[in-house]
């Protein structure tokens, strides 16, 4: 039995569990369509859980997901779907789609919920090259001046962060090399065979100063899915249950997605709002987290998230990355133990969710011994979400 809910805690606390996960191969180019990858990976996640796809009655994904619920349902042979939802803001959605799946199951709206993301971002177009999409508000205030790409937007926050707190490229490098060292242990990671030294990082070409190539995530084709059921049912299934202990979304006051320059304190991003709810609904504190999967489309997002989720105080994240503190087997808080978006695959952060599950099943290639809790976060700098998983 899961622990009884504490008075005043969220209704979903430990009420559901992730019972199945799956992923396709990750590559710069995969031949199947995004729809085919999505259907295949969802069926595989059901197989992992030991649940027939016909039992799936809830479907949750990203607004940016190209394959709609009706396509998924008639391909994988669903019966009656009674809950479906999509969450916006790209990489901010990831933990949210799993959280919505958990809420659907916990509140009795569905019994078997699937969350997924399928994306051919490796072989497909870069979204920022579409000027018709770019020039909508707030892009009208930024794109004409050559702030064209997500990396330019995050670099702007990064420069200010460095100015305020004395962070340097060495601290960004600490993130990049820690995550790469984890990918070097994971045969599924795109960067499995490519090591990265501090010299390699410092010699990399600029993309948007102060960010270089290795501050940027990969561009990947791939798909991932997970299956959420009640905690009670999960205990009878094939895999050890990974409980969804706490879930939150976060959208702070007067926020602008990616270009959060238009409020009182731009360095206080959505992670802070998300974290307050996440911890308020949790029996655990940041110091109880054994391992973390922190959204890393860009290295500075890890620094901002470490502060937002309370692992250190504001401005202290640079120091927190020192002495290999983020590295498996060395540090206090191993992050992105499968290689993350920087070095495993970039599929809008869904690989972070699956790796969180593997850590609590005890099957990671960078297994944190005895891991009981794992924080998974979605994109910082956009309306975001997070999950606290436990076994």
């Amino acid at each position: 039995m899961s622990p009884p809910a504490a008075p005043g805690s969220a209704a979903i606390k430990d009420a559901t569990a992730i019972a199945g996960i799956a992923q396709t191969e990750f590559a710069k180019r995969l031949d199947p369509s995004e729809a085919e990858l999505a259907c295949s990976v969802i069926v595989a996640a059901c197989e992992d859980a030991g649940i027939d796809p016909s039992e799936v009655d809830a479907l949750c994904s990203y607004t940016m997901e190209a394959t709609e619920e009706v396509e998924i349902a008639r391909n994988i042979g669903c019966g009656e779907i009674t809950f479906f939802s999509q969450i916006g803001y790209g990489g901010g959605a990831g933990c949210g789609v799993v959280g919505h799946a958990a809420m659907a199951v916990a509140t009795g709206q569905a019994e078997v919920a699937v969350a997924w993301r399928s994306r051919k971002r490796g072989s497909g177009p870069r979204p920022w090259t579409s000027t018709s999409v770019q020039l909508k508000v707030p892009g009208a205030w930024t794109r004409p001046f050559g702030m064209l790409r997500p990396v330019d937007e995050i670099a702007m926050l990064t420069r200010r962060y460095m100015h305020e707190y004395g962070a340097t490229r060495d601290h960004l490098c600490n993130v990049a090399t820690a995550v790469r060292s984890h990918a070097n242990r994971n045969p599924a990671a795109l960067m499995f065979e490519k090591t990265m030294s501090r010299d390699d990082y410092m010699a990399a070409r600029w993309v948007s100063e102060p960010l270089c190539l290795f501050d940027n995530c990969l561009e990947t084709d791939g798909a991932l899915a997970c299956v959420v059921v009640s905690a009670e049912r999960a205990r009878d299934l094939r895999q050890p249950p990974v409980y969804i202990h706490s879930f939150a979304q976060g959208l702070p006051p007067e926020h602008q997605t990616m270009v959060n320059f238009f409020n009182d304190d731009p360095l206080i991003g959505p992670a802070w709002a998300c974290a307050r709810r996440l911890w308020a609904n949790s029996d655990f504190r940041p110091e109880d987290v054994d391992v973390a999967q922190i959204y890393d489309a860009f290295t500075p997002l890890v620094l901002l998230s470490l502060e937002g989720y309370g692992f250190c105080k504001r401005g202290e994240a640079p120091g927190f990355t020192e002495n290999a503190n983020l590295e498996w087997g060395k540090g206090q808080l191993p992050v992105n133990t499968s290689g993350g978006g920087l070095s495993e695959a970039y599929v809008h952060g869904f690989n972070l969710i699956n790796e969180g599950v593997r850590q609590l099943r005890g099957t990671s290639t960078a297994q944190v011994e005895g891991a009981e809790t794992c924080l998974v976060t979605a994109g910082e700098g956009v309306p975001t979400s997070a999950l606290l998983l436990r076994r």
Partner: protein
Amino acid sequence: MTNAAAFSGGGVSDLGPSREGFLLPAFDEEAGEFWDGANEGELRVQACASCGRLRHPPRPMCPICHSTDRTWKAMSGRGTIWSYVVPHPPLLTPYSELAPYNVIVVELEEEPNIRFVGNLVTGPEGSIDEIDPHSIEIGEPVQVVFKRFERADGSEEHLPFWIRSKA
């Protein structure tokens, strides 16, 4: 072509890039006064007509007092650099041909929480690549100038750019 014409249908209207290929703002009906001001050489910021609070980007409602009465206030055009970046390729043409160039965020003298994204140049005819980006410092005082862009159809727009100020 006036901005008012572009707003006749409401919503957002993209009139296309400049002759050189620089992206120009897709106008939304909320921001017309800003771009009209830019074409007249004045930096205007939307303000709540009820409580007076400045807000940017423009929007229909004051988040403090919930009034939908809105007005525009002329700013001095003075500010300081809050942050900056130096983009390198891959970028869209013609930006890629000018890279590395600077992009800055300026906070206004009247209200530091009102910030604009722009470029540091030497004057209203200036190019975004003409200043050594490594000479830029956070906190530098700057002054707005308005740079003219022309579309293929002959219509023109002025965008706020920034020059170093002695003040």
